């Protein structure tokens, strides 16, 4: 079991409201990603759930029980930290066994469980090493191993891949996703990297200034952003948000067009000049200065051979235009 419910959870540091009020339900077995820019309160929210920070007000329920005032150890959750937070004076085996030792488990059983976790995470050959003798990826695996052995109600990940290099990050991302499919335990994952959010999550929670902007599956957020913040935050390259006359024509204050929903046409559309052209092989990313709507990002096919200074015409796909009102919210 691992259902977590937040009811009007608020957190202030002095006079500053970091989390004004959050209501959220995380179902058992969900892989939920908290995403948002730096300082949006995503890590604070995770720490509130973990019990490492006290809530100012509100209720946190874990599996139907009020856990608001329970200490971290009593919540039945396991956490993986950005800095790995391994015990440097203990071997990998002792690190993994530590939570079991704290739970008073008999040493034989604890060793067996640690060995099983090590097998799952390919750590069997490193059990007698100290964390200092491991690479970043191996350390993160040990941290995950330490979390797995407890068989927690839910796993909490606080930007666990931020300290890894790009290639390793992709590998670990896949490993964590596979682990979730294997264990089917609730996972809450904090990241500022929207690619991680899109690829890993069953459900994404987009946070901004301590408020939840939208909750939904990655594709729902991508295809139906609730407001301009989510529209601009989810997707890479970013969605083009256009105001002014072109938006008014469609009865909106702002219109949003994803870079891949702009077609290069021979007639009509917005005229512009290619500023920057990035050929990635599979795609071509263009930055185009137009007279009508300013500078916009375009994602064209890999075969497009446009260069800096080329004149082009761009037309948005009408069915893919997102309309937002004066309050920034999506219009029906």
């Amino acid at each position, binding site marked *: 079991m691992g259902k977590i419910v937040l009811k009007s959870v608020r957190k202030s540091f002095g006079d500053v409201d970091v989390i004004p009020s959050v209501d959220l339900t995380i179902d058992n077995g969900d892989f939920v990603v908290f995403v948002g820019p730096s300082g949006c309160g995503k890590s604070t929210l995770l720490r509130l759930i973990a019990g490492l920070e006290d809530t100012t007000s509100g209720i946190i329920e874990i599996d139907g029980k009020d856990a608001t005032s329970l200490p971290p150890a009593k919540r039945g959750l396991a956490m993986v930290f950005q800095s790995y937070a391994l015990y440097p004076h203990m071997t990998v085996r002792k690190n993994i066994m*530590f*939570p079991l030792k704290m739970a008073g488990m008999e040493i034989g059983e604890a060793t067996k469980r640690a060995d099983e976790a090590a097998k799952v995470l390919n750590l069997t050959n490193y059990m007698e090493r100290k964390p200092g003798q491991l690479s970043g990826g191996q350390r993160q695996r040990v941290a995950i191993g330490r979390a797995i052995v407890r068989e927690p109600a839910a796993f909490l990940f606080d930007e666990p891949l931020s300290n890894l290099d790009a290639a390793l990050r992709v590998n670990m991302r896949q490993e964590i996703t596979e682990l979730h499919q294997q264990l089917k335990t609730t996972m809450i994952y904090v990241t500022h990297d929207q690619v991680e959010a899109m690829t890993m999550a069953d459900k994404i929670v987009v946070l901004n200034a301590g408020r939840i902007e939208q909750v939904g599956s990655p594709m729902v957020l991508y295809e139906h952003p609730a407001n301009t913040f989510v529209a601009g935050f989810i997707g890479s390259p970013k969605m083009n948000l256009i105001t002014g006359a072109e938006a008014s024509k469609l009865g909106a204050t702002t219109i949003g067009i994803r870079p891949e929903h702009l077609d290069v046409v021979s007639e009509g559309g917005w005229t512009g000049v290619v500023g920057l052209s990035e050929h990635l092989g599979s795609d071509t990313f263009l930055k185009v200065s137009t007279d009508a709507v300013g500078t916009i990002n375009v994602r064209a096919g890999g075969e497009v051979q446009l260069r800096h200074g080329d004149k082009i015409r761009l037309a948005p796909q009408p069915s893919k235009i997102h309309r937002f009102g004066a309050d920034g919210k999506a219009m029906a």
Partner: protein
Amino acid sequence: MARSTTKTSKSLVTIAAWTIGFLIFFPILWIVLMSFHTEGDAIKSPFQMLASKWTFESYEAVQTQRGYGKFFMNSVVISVGSTVFALIIGIPAAWSMAFVPGKKTKDVLMWMLSTKMMPAVGVLIPMYLGFKNLGLLDTRTGLVAIMTLINLPLVIWMLYTYFKEIPGEILEAARMDGATLWSEIFYVLTPMAIPGIASTLLLNVILAWNEAFWTLQLTTQAAAPLTQFIASFSAPEGLFYAKLSAASTMAIAPILIMGWFSQKQLVRGLTFGAVK
């Protein structure tokens, strides 16, 4: 050109360092050499660094007159005992100040340090009367208690500095792993802070071993440590330089040997956190 300048300045610095080192070491050398003089040679004028006749007679004399063993044992009990108690109190205190500081933590730390700035003689009378009323005069218990209290601010300050270097996330991980406060301190914090704790321990033993003011004021016989042993040779009937030197050499030798063997640890501990 640049290279030769560097070489010259390096030589000058080396000479200066050796000179300063020698000047600091000189009193100890003087005492050690003096302890091998006869009493007659010791008071000769002009003063001779090297004895005309090397002898152990002063060592024999001080041992027969006073008995070194009892004083030595008292010094060991007082310095080690007070250090153990200071660490038992200091580790949790430093933990709370480093990891769960309150609004007044900095003030408390400064207040503790300020007690070290007060001249000890200022509180001699109340302390003496207090000790007398509690029956602690000339007892090892009394001395252990006062040495613990005297060095506690320094112990807490040193431990606090070391603990601040330990990432809070590791302790949070321990909390998430089910550690209680005490298991967090015992299994995670203390082993990680071993270099810092060891140098605090060593420094505290040295300070307690060398402390002379309170040990001379509050002891006479039963709990008298090596500081009393030295002082007892500075008698009203005159100074016996050779015996005084022999007593001093015997008193400082254990701590000097300990310091020599632990210097690596001491330097490592005292510069801990200076460079990340």
